[in-house]
């Protein structure tokens, strides 16, 4: 039978729980992925006392996690696109920085090389003019090497980053699988949602979604199955598949291991950091490396072809000026300034003949080797391409950061802890607790009244 004592006691314990939960919210206010919790009160079933139903107090029906699945899914989608755009932009701007300094680029050395060819044409028998040309040719091959080396350093960075990201994905997958098990077990025991465990698992999925595109399905028992990229199953209940990284020539390849077999899924890993890395590599890095190689080889071939038509200072037929081998391996083949074939190969030989040097210098304006543009034009296209891709990537990254920020705001409007609100609840529940305690004091007074009456 209900009494003021028992009724107030239910209030005391209920508000104590509520205060504990407020404290929990305050404690976790800064924890990433924490969703604020709210105690749900319900009135206890009344008892019938002949004259009517007497209330028997209050109880906590559940502790609710403020969480909106739709908003959370929006945050994850945004994290996937934003993660992809951010890493793409970061790496593109590294390449952008490489081409930023005009003194570091290819253009000034190309210009000086052709200027030196003009110098030889102006004065074909001058050894100093020929030495200048060899020096500038050496500087040109050095610059090709430098650009190729920076490119491969960036490629190494991408490879390491892919390996690191894959390792992170595997760790997160393991964490999700472990939490799946615990959640299934605890869900089975109490029938009440294990809010903090759910938060932890959701946070792991959040983190996973910035690394790669994620799809997930909640199962009836509370476990979540996770698929990445274009549908590779990563977590199924308590078990995980693993991703691995191998090297194909110089590029990191992503493997998917399942049932003892491995499968190349590099192209399937879209979205997120991993997708961004793969995209950057194929769209920007590999493309600019290939174009630099084309420029190096195109130039070497065009110069060599013309150079072989001429004769050197001693009347011998011109040999190869450069040894082609892409930007990384183009070498100067000539070793002596006398070997520069400035003289024509068809006219009677004379050391003051500059006809072939003129033709060599004219290759600066030749457009046959580079599909309608000059060698310097082809290089300018590489710069423009990297520049505009970086610019697009930057705009993309900024826009997607904005979207993510709005999605997070919407999500945190529901799930986030506001300390002022918690302070208000703290005061509110404290008052309620004090009131319940006062009611118990009244119960005690009533009891004392009866004791005193009996003593008389």
């Amino acid at each position, binding site marked *: 039978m209900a009494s003021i004592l028992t009724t107030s006691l239910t209030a005391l314990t209920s508000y104590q729980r509520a205060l504990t939960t407020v404290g929990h919210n305050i404690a976790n206010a800064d924890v990433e992925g924490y969703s604020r919790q709210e105690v749900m009160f319900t009135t206890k079933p009344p008892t019938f006392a002949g004259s009517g139903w007497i209330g028997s107090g209050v109880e906590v029906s559940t502790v609710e996690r403020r969480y909106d699945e739709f908003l959370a899914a929006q945050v994850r989608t945004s994290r996937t696109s934003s993660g992809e755009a951010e890493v793409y932009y970061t790496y593109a701007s590294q390449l952008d920085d490489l081409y930023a300094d005009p003194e570091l680029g290819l253009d000034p050395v190309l210009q000086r090389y052709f200027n030196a060819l003009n110098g030889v044409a102006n004065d074909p028998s001058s050894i100093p003019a020929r030495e200048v040309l060899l020096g500038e040719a050496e500087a040109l091959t050095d610059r090709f090497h430098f650009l190729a080396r920076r490119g491969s350093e960036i490629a190494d960075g991408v490879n390491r980053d892919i390996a690191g990201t894959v390792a992170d994905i595997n760790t997160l997958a393991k964490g999700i699988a472990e939490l799946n098990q615990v959640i299934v077990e605890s869900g089975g025991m109490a029938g009440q949602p294990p809010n903090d465990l759910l938060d932890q698992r959701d946070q792991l999925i959040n983190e996973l979604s910035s690394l790669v595109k994620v799809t997930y399905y909640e199962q009836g028992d509370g476990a979540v199955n996770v698929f990445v990229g274009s549908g590779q199953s990563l977590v199924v209940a308590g078990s995980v598949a693993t991703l691995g990284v191998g090297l194909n020539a110089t590029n990191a390849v992503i493997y998917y291991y399942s049932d003892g077999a491995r499968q190349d899924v590099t192209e399937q890993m879209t979205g997120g950091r991993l997708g961004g890395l793969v995209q950057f590599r194929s769209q920007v890095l590999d493309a600019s490396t290939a174009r630099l190689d084309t420029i190096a080889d195109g130039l070497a071939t065009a110069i060599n072809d013309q150079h072989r038509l001429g004769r050197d200072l001693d009347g011998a037929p011109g040999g190869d000026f450069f040894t082609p081998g892409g930007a990384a391996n183009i070498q100067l083949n000539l070793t002596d300034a006398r070997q520069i074939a400035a003289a024509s190969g068809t006219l009677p030989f004379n050391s003051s003949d500059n006809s072939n040097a003129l033709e060599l210098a004219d290759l600066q304006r030749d457009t046959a080797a580079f599909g309608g543009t000059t060698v310097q034009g082809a290089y300018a296209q590489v710069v*423009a391409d990297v520049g505009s891709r970086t610019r697009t990537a*930057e705009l993309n990254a900024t826009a997607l950061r904005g979207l993510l920020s709005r999605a997070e705001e919407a999500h945190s*409007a529901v799930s986030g802890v506001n300390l002022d609100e918690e302070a208000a609840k703290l005061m509110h529940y404290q008052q309620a607790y004090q009131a319940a305690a006062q009611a118990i004091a009244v119960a005690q007074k009533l009891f004392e009244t009866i004791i005193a009456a009996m003593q008389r």
Partner: protein
Amino acid sequence: MNRISTHLFHQRATASMLDNQSRLSNTQLQLATGKRILRPSDDPAGATRTLDLQRYLETGRQFLSNMGFARARLETQETALEGVTGLLQRVSELAVQGNNATASQTARDGIAAEVDQLLEQLLALANTRDSNGEYLFGGLTRDQKPFTDSGGGTFSYAGDDQQRQIQVSEDRRVADADTGQDIFMGSNADGSDSAFGVLYRLAADLRSGADLSVSIADIQQAQAQVLEVRARGGARLNALDDLGNVNEDLAVMLEAQLSEIRDLDYAEAVSRMNRQLLALQASQQSYTRLSQLSLFNYL
């Protein structure tokens, strides 16, 4: 009800301050370097245009330098041929003097001796070297003396009939000298009807007392041949001057364009920096004020 999570509030405030700072630092870098485009991505089209303009400028400078070579040699040629013209003029006067019926054989011998001297001088002028020590009138063969006296009124030409071209603009080449063949030689390969042969025969005819009217005509012919070459050389020098002027005007224009694309507008950048400073200060101050507000202060 619009709730704001405290965590997010702090995060957003910090993020916006960081954003303001990074914009400010970019502007500061622009001001420090004086450049509007710090990376190609700041303005991809502008960056390519900068490369193009720099290339035009550099190539233009190279053409100016090439023109310098061509001009120096054409001027050397003009000086030499001016000497040749004067020399032939003197020869022509001497021939007329010698041809005068009143001229005694002694006088004719004296004239012949002067013509011999002038022939030596003419050979020296025809073997003029440029500042590099190369023989200017050998065509492409400039490492050996083009003209030698082979004796008996014959003169050999060791040069060729090719002109050395100098690239003076994208699509224009200019010969830096005319060939000895064009200037001095006639149609006989042994040089007997060259300018030198004409002088040799004049001296011989003076000594033998023969009539000089053929020689006088030949001298005029030789003079005309040299004048024609000089006119061509002069036209080339004029063309070089024109091209040089165009090139320099173009360079000034290209510099201006380059500066417009590449260089920073300081007034704009400074006012932008002031705006950004203000924004950063505002976000710092508002954050300090707002973050002090808490209900916990009243508990």
